[in-house]
């Protein structure tokens, strides 16, 4: 099927069509010209041969005059036939019932229509096929000059039978030359077609390759413009389009990076005042218990919000590192089960989480980032899902897989594509969540930062068979630090 489709595509391709068109054009022209000149040459050759033969016969016949006796004797007829025979022809002489023939064993080469025409008193000739070979029959009567100026038929009919084999050979030579010319012109046509197909197809192929490169994101792709034909126009248009695209994309990237830098700068600028505010709120926290009523609640609120703000700023700084490509992995050979257990223990979740951790899985990764991801996923499960929360660790040759599942309502299909978006709020009515709204985005970036060649870490959100959200983290076992490459 595929083979047939490919053959079909090749057959209907430009190259084959061009070759066919050129070949047909060449063959048609050659056939027309060659056959035309062949027929004309054949006619000329045959006419010349016939005319020469007729002239030669009449010349020879003038020498048999004067005729002294009628009716002639058989000897007379034989003598006449002998005189008219030569290497290429023989003669048949007929007088009423008498008939003599020189030089050939053929029974009777004469055709009735020719004899009739000769008897009616004209020189006549005809091409016939004698024993498979072409021959020319020429016939005439011997007429007698009457004393009164007219001529009278004597009744002696002379026929000359001349072989046309030499003419046939010349004509056959013409034909074979015509075939040769036709074959050569066909060859030439095919060569020309291939050449012109190359001339057309190469720019088309270049264009196709350039378009593919452009589609793959290489916006600096340009075509070399050759000549001034339609294909050059297409190439020029392509270059213009690519140029415009590159400019606009560059502008967009510049704007985006400006925005990110702005966020990063703002975050950094906020750190110092936040540190001061944290110090103040620590004091306030201690004093809150002694403060009466509303003042105590306000102090606790300020303290809580300051912590949230600090968390948000830290997350923003973290994410701006990913965006600027300055995030670096601190790789270490890590016992993954132990690392996950440690994460849970530090947060005090070890008793609340069901763990299925395959022991002895050692992977090369950044333990701090693994800790951030696992803590975020489990924390989210507690916050948004419902217990029991389970963490499963498994591994194969190339990958380490950690699944975090809860038994809550699961993720809304509309939400699913956006869970890793920054500051995305699943519940639009809830304008303020406990988290910064950046946790999953940071986890996702952390997962992707781990890569080994073509293998790249991933974090996927989905719903389990029994309801509840399932987040699946996959990391390559042998991460190689490639710097901040995104």
């Amino acid at each position: 099927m595929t083979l047939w489709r490919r053959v079909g595509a090749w057959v209907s391709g430009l190259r084959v069509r061009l070759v066919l068109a050129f070949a047909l054009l060449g063959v048609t022209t050659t056939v027309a010209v060659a056959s035309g000149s062949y027929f004309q040459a054949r006619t000329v050759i045959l006419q010349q041969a016939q005319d020469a033969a007729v002239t030669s016969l009449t010349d020879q016949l003038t020498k048999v005059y004067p005729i002294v006796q009628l009716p002639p004797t058989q000897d007379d007829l034989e003598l006449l036939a002998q005189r008219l025979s030569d290497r290429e022809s023989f003669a048949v002489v007929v007088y009423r019932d008498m008939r003599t023939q020189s030089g050939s064993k053929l029974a009777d080469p004469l055709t009735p229509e020719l004899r009739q025409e000769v008897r009616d008193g004209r020189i006549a000739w005809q091409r016939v096929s004698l024993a498979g070979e072409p021959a020319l029959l020429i016939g005439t009567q011997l007429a007698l000059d009457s004393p009164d100026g007219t001529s009278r038929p004597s009744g002696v009919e002379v026929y000359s039978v001349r072989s046309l084999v030499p003419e046939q050979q010349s004509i056959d030579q013409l034909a074979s030359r015509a075939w040769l010319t036709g074959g050569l012109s066909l060859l030439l046509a095919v060569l020309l077609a291939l050449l012109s197909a190359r001339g057309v197809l190469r720019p088309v192929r270049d264009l196709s390759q350039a378009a593919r490169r452009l589609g793959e994101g290489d916006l600096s792709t340009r075509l070399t413009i050759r000549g001034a034909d339609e294909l050059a126009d297409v190439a020029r248009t392509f270059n213009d389009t690519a140029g415009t695209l590159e400019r606009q994309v560059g502008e967009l990237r510049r704007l985006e990076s400006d925005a990110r830098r702005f966020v990063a700068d703002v975050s950094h600028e906020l750190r110092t005042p936040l540190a001061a505010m944290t110090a103040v709120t620590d004091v306030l926290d201690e004093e809150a218990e002694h403060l009466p009523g509303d003042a105590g609640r306000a102090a606790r609120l300020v303290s809580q919000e300051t912590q949230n703000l600090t968390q948000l700023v830290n997350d923003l700084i973290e994410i701006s590192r990913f965006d600027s490509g300055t995030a670096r992995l601190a790789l270490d050979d890590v016992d993954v089960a132990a690392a996950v257990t440690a994460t849970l223990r530090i947060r005090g979740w070890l008793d609340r989480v069901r763990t299925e951790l395959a022991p002895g899985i050692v992977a090369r990764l950044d333990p701090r980032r693994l800790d951030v991801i696992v803590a975020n996923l489990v924390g989210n499960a507690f916050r948004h899902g419902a217990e029991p929360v389970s963490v499963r660790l498994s591994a194969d040759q190339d990958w380490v897989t950690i699944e975090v599942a809860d038994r809550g309502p699961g993720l809304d299909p509309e939400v699913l594509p956006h869970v890793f978006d920054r500051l995305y709020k699943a519940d639009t009515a809830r304008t303020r969540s406990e988290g910064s709204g950046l946790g999953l985005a940071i986890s996702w970036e952390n997962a992707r930062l781990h890569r080994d060649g073509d293998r790249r870490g991933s974090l996927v959100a989905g719903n389990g068979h029994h309801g509840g959200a399932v987040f699946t983290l996959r990391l390559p076992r042998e991460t190689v630090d490639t710097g901040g490459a995104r």
Partner: protein
Amino acid sequence: MTGRRTGRALLASGLLLTLVAAGCGVRPSGVITGRPPISGPAQGTWLYLLAQGELVLVLRPVNADPSPTAALSLLAAGPQENERAQGFTSDVPAGLDPVTVTAGAGRSGDLTVRANIAAQALSARAVDQIICTSVAAAAQVSAANTATTVTIVGSDGARGPRACPIR
């Protein structure tokens, strides 16, 4: 595209077919006629005998006297051996000889053949033999003699004038 290609293929194969149908090499032809046959002089006496009921020209080797009278005498003598062998006959009675031929007094060039025979009893073919032979002989004697009609005068009257049916 397919239709155009099919059309081209049809055109090409049609041309090839024409070529094949017209054939290569030397083809037999019909009868081609040229000018009238060549003509040359004849030496001898022209006589007209009969073969299968038709007038046929016969040349006798030339003798001393090419006059119409001599020619008619030869005609009266009948076909010779070799002529008879080829089926030639004559309707002219031997009694035609002696005969005289004179240029007619009427229209210029007319001939009168006088003989001691029953002219009315002569068959039509015998009359033609006599007329054609005498016209040919008269022309041979003198090219200026352009006689075309002959009157045969016998013992029972005259026949003609008539012209030789062979032109």
